């Protein structure tokens, strides 16, 4: 298939992080929307870490006296069909969403970056082989790939986190990062310092890890941030389908999954708030990711 976009081809100067003491301030000045996204992310992170103190109720506490209660002073976002406080479940749900999102996007991007760097560095047959696999993986929609992993692996819960769910969300991220990392690597491999390293007799592993990887940090950070939004959306979708997080663990997608048509009219808060939590989280990571991209690497704009 013929593609028009030539992929990120940026100079190494643009790819090293600006190392000024006031880098954060410079970012804030040039990307106000990114700061807005970052603040929202920090609020979610705060909710995740401080859930214990912030949440007014135990998220798994069933209260049959207050089933499907409308939003009120006691229950700001109302309660669900088991009388559980919706606000508390949303606050604790940010733990699930962020844990799954952060672990899978970092692991996925690290694996993808190594694969892409190796592909671009070695070239030739290795490159062709890796790229064919990447192409094939990219021809499946993200959720389809994740569902296949879920179907084959089943569940493996360790410490309250379903490791196989994380694997399912990680897998689709790998080929996307590999693509970007390969393109960046190709522009670095052509530079003299790589020749110098080779002439000095360094091994492949050392050159990849010490010379190439540090130079693809910028696209890496951008991809981590973008994958985070994707991972949160994917976890919510899988949980909604009943293939992700299981009851009674609070997760946003799962909260929507229990809602049948009866609740659309009688308890709209059960549908509105969890969905809003997902949307705002994805929005925040997208906004931050876009700003990070514009700031670190203006040429990577798609």
């Amino acid at each position, binding site marked *: 298939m013929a593609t028009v976009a030539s992929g990120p081809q940026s100079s190494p100067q643009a790819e090293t992080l600006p190392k000024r003491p006031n880098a954060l301030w410079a970012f804030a000045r040039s990307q106000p929307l990114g700061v807005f996204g970052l603040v929202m992310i920090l609020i979610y992170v705060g909710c995740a870490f401080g859930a214990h103190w912030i949440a007014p109720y135990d998220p798994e506490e069933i209260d049959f006296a207050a089933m499907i209660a409308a939003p009120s002073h006691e229950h700001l976002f109302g309660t669900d069909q088991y009388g559980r406080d919706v606000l508390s479940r949303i606050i604790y749900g940010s733990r699930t969403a962020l844990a799954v999102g952060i672990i899978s996007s970092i692991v996925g991007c690290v694996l993808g970056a190594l694969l892409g760097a190796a592909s671009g560095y070695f070239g030739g047959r290795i490159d062709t082989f890796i790229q064919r696999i990447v192409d*094939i993986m990219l021809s499946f*929609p*993200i959720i*389809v790939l994740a569902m296949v992993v879920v179907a084959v692996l089943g569940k493996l819960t360790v410490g309250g986190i379903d490791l196989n769910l994380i694997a399912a969300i990680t897998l689709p991220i790998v080929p996307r990062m590999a693509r970007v990392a390969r393109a960046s690597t190709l522009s670095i491999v052509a530079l003299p310092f790589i020749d110098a390293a080779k002439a000095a007799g360094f091994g492949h592993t050392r050159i990849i890890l010490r010379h190439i990887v540090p130079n693809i940090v910028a696209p890496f950070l951008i991809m981590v941030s973008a994958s985070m939004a994707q991972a949160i959306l994917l976890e919510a979708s899988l949980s909604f*389908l009943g293939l992700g997080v299981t009851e009674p663990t609070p997760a946003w997608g799962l909260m929507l999954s229990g809602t049948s048509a009866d609740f*659309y009219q009688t308890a709209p808060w059960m549908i509105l708030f969890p969905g809003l939590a997902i949307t705002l989280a994805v929005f925040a990571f997208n906004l931050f990711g876009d700003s990070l991209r514009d700031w670190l690497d203006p040429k990577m704009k798609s």
Partner: protein
Amino acid sequence: MIWYVLRRLFLTIPTLIGVAVAVFFLIRVMPGDVVVVKLRADGAAVSDEAIEAERKRLGLDKPLYQQFFEYMAGLPTLDLGKSLWTGEPVTKEIAIRMPVSIQIAIMAGLIAIAIAIPLGTISAVYRDTWVDHVVRVVAVSGLAIPSFWLGMLMIMALLTLFNWLPKIGYVPFWQDPMANLAVTIWPAASVGYRYAAVATRMMRSSLLEVMREDYIRTARAKGVWQALIMRRHALRNAMLPVVTVIGLEFAFLIGGLVVTEQVFNINGIGKLFVDATTRGDFNLIQGLVLLIAAIFIFVNLIVDLLYGWLDPRIRLT
């Protein structure tokens, strides 16, 4: 032209074989045992003999290479094996549910194009005005709102405003167009929103780029009427990346459909896929994944053909 199309169609065969091999190994080689997952779901106590018997029944006790050859041999005749749950051929199970999903996907695509081209153009022409800002906010939220939640919001709005719930039964379009549209329009709109958002963003940035080109400046210097410049010179050239993104995003559209069909209770391939996954019906999963990849490859072939039509400089030989 016709030769080009035929050759391209022929060239999809090795790609499809590659995908088929990948799907086979993805399902078989990953650690984990489908039979164990299926039988011991929710910690049910099942004896090892029962698991062995089930494995034999499904032909999973055969060596891997034999399974692989049997699977590959069935592909040319579209023999994808039988569903492990219903016992019906996979091809039949899929064929029943294909029309509704394909219709929704195409409708969503049309909705997206109908929204993206005018909106993206307006946004680019009135760049950095309030119109542009509104369009961009709408587009960015399209990327954040999960399509299944948007579907739920639609149902909620319809119920509250009109006290009307979208119907469930699917009627083929040629039998009763109105009844058909009443079912399919809602899921199409909810998955189409994201699609439209992506395409609008691409349309805007692509048009802004084209408008900086020399030939646009020349046309303007000649005194060509602005609307004519847009129609004859700018839009057509700006369409190329938009068409690319529409092709690439088609796969995500199907992904969105997998979840959204659940919300509207539509018995399409998306719902079939979810059911197959919950039941561990891996023959069906295999067939569906293959189908989705084939659709993706086919759509991208169409996109490549569209390039030649949009931009005669790209010669299809």
